């Protein structure tokens, strides 16, 4: 972000950017991201010690900021380094635990310090990003709740200490009423995880809940409050992922621009061809537009409709622009853009995959239209 860059923010940006550049040189990053763990526990520990996760939370929540601009700043820096660590899980699980109140204070503290890892499972095989499309069941009993169902593509599920899941106390799939959110501790009986590597590196898993018994204070929210919380949490994801996408595009822009100046064909740098010049300028302008959309979203307006529209607009813009940047960056590189060896290919994959998390461009266009109706 280059908006409202006060002294504290500049320092945070510099510390984080330097740290990430040092730890995630691209070959090293790929080794980590495509490994069986999908991340590096030691680096995560160092990140925790630097206190960076605290930027995602307010002082009341145990952090030191929590402002939209700081969340965006952190995730933009993560994007620039293609960092595969569980920051998004920390942000979302942390904010959910905040909503859960006193019973979740210890876990929240551990998430904010980075001592523990959080994950969220809101998606199911058939949800296609719809937060209320929940078939997983929660049944209340004398000791607490019993959970049954499968949550899909839960990022970092295997290494999480706590997974926040949505399940249904009553009603049909797609009803917003009857939803509930629970904090499911790792290792509880009946919880199993089938994990796998993602296309863009990192790891996710199917979280299978089979007669999982949890205490009544594992409940974080229920009913319409649960749906409202889901929307708030998804909103944080929209901001974080959009900012991450922006960071990725910034890097791809530089990589491609440099390539156009260096690569020679027909006796001239290919950047001399006017078609390519125009295509490059187009990309740069679109990235600037996307940056503006992210800045809008980072204001996290108190007006829920404006906030939601800004967030969907940002995620939609990043989705669209991201597809275009990924496509063009590879195309302008020619054959070498298809190779594992060129960093640009890994950036392109992650960039497009961001569109497959928490709603793609189609989803956010529909959501933007829907929110505009109510305004």
């Amino acid at each position, binding site marked *: 972000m280059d908006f409202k860059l006060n002294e504290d923010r500049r320092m945070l940006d510099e510390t984080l950017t330097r740290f990430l550049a040092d730890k995630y040189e691209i070959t090293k990053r790929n080794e980590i991201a495509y490994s069986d763990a999908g991340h590096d526990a030691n680096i995560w520990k160092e990140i925790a010690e630097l206190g960076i996760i605290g930027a995602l939370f307010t002082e009341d929540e145990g952090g030191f900021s929590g402002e939209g601009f700081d969340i965006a700043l952190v995730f933009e820096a993560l994007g620039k380094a293609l960092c595969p660590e569980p920051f998004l899980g920390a942000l979302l699980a942390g904010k959910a635990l905040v909503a859960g109140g006193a019973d979740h204070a210890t876990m929240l503290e551990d998430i904010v310090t980075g001592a523990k890892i959080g994950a969220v499972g809101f998606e199911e095989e058939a949800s296609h990003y719809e937060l209320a499309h929940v078939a997983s069941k929660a049944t209340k009993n004398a000791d607490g709740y019993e959970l049954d169902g499968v949550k899909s593509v839960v990022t970092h599920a295997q290494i999480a200490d706590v997974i926040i899941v949505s399940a249904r106390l009553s009603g049909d799939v797609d009803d917003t009423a009857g939803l509930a959110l629970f904090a499911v501790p790792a290792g509880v009986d009946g919880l199993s995880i089938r994990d796998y590597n993602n296309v863009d590196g990192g790891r996710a898993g199917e979280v299978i809940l089979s007669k999982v018994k949890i205490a009544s204070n594992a409940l974080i929210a229920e009913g319409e409050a649960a749906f409202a919380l889901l929307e708030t949490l998804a909103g944080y994801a929209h901001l974080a992922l959009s900012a991450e996408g922006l960071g990725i595009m910034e890097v791809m822009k530089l990589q491609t621009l440099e390539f156009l100046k260096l690569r020679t064909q027909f006796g001239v740098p290919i950047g001399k061809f006017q078609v390519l010049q125009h295509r490059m300028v187009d990309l740069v302008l679109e990235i600037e537009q996307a940056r503006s959309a992210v800045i809008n979203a980072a204001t996290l307006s108190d007006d829920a409709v404006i906030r939601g529209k800004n967030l969907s607009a940002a995620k939609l813009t990043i989705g669209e622009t991201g597809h275009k940047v990924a496509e063009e960056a590879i195309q302008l590189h020619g054959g070498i853009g298809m190779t594992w060896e060129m960093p640009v*290919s890994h950036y392109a*994959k992650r960039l497009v995959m961001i569109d497959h998390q928490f709603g793609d461009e189609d989803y956010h266009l529909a959501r933007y239209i829907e929110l505009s109706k109510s305004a």
Partner: protein
Amino acid sequence: MSEVEIFRSEVKTWLADHCPPEMRMPITDDEICWGGRDFVFINNAQHSWLNDMAAKGWTVPAWPKAYGGGGLNGDEQKILAEELGHINARSPLQSFGISMLGPALLKYGSEQQKLLYLPQIARGEIRWCQGYSEPDAGSDLASVKTKGVDDGDDFIVSGQKVWTSYADQADWIFCLVRTEPDAPKHRGISFLLFDMKSKGVSTKPIKLISGSSPFCETFFDEVRVPKTNIIGGRGEGWTIAKYLLTHEREMIGSSDLLFGGDDVCGTARDAVGLNDDGQLDDAILRAEIGNFIVDEMAFDAHMDMTKGYMRAGNQLGARSAELKYLGTELNKTRQSLLMASGGANALTWEDAGNIVPQAPRAWLRSKGNSIEGGTSEIMLSILSKAILKMPS
């Protein structure tokens, strides 16, 4: 019955007897028959399907019988293609020999060369790779530097190729080599054929964005190639190279591999579901798919007309760039829609239970479609020069 009807009924009967049921199922990348010395057939059905089709000359129905082809006329070719389509028959043989080298040999090879190489290609005995691109000669292909030094009856070939698809699995290579170092750029290249087992040839696979390695760096260290292996004359390689490219582009633009994959409508329906009106339950994806289908219909019709034009004995020439450009851009759209259908599941590989299992790999692979065989930018340049006669 007319002659054509008789032919159709013969084809029907023959196919019913000879196309094994396993060869009538949708094909995946791993199940393609590439032929070649070291090819391992996935099953007997694949082997007998190739042998039976080759014996009829139907791996290359348009080629003359003398060279292992079917000697079919335009109408007969169309009937055979239709009947193969009706039973969903797999292609018995995919090969760069058939789609690229063969047409060049038919036009520019000597009689002796045709008799030697073409039947082997038709029977799938020799697998070929394409040694065109070099690190500094991509779009600017005519600046190839791999050199062939005159040494009596042979050329001594040294240099490097890159992006050579399946070089590590190919038996022979058709290769652009600079044999006339003093001639102008476009007149110093010769079109040479040689065995990949020759002393001095080595390959190194290149890992792709998808993690697989279908193409290689190919190195030549003083490889001895008999002068009789030259196609056309010395320094005439560029003409042949360009002619071959028109066939490559036609192949890429019309490839079953591009268009035989997952059906967009069906995949989206399974992944996203239908609403109460029986429409795809996602208005925006529905509109995008609608647009795509309309484009695809137009392209199919365009392709049908083009095929008719070629069956009538015409060459596509520069218009192959049109097919290549439209076909590959369309395929990229199609792959993106398949990915969009998958939603969050498209983040995972097929073994993770992805509901659109082939999509991520096919999507990543499709990014190469607008680069291989000449980039989209180069296709547009060719069309603006050759068809629109724009000043250059």
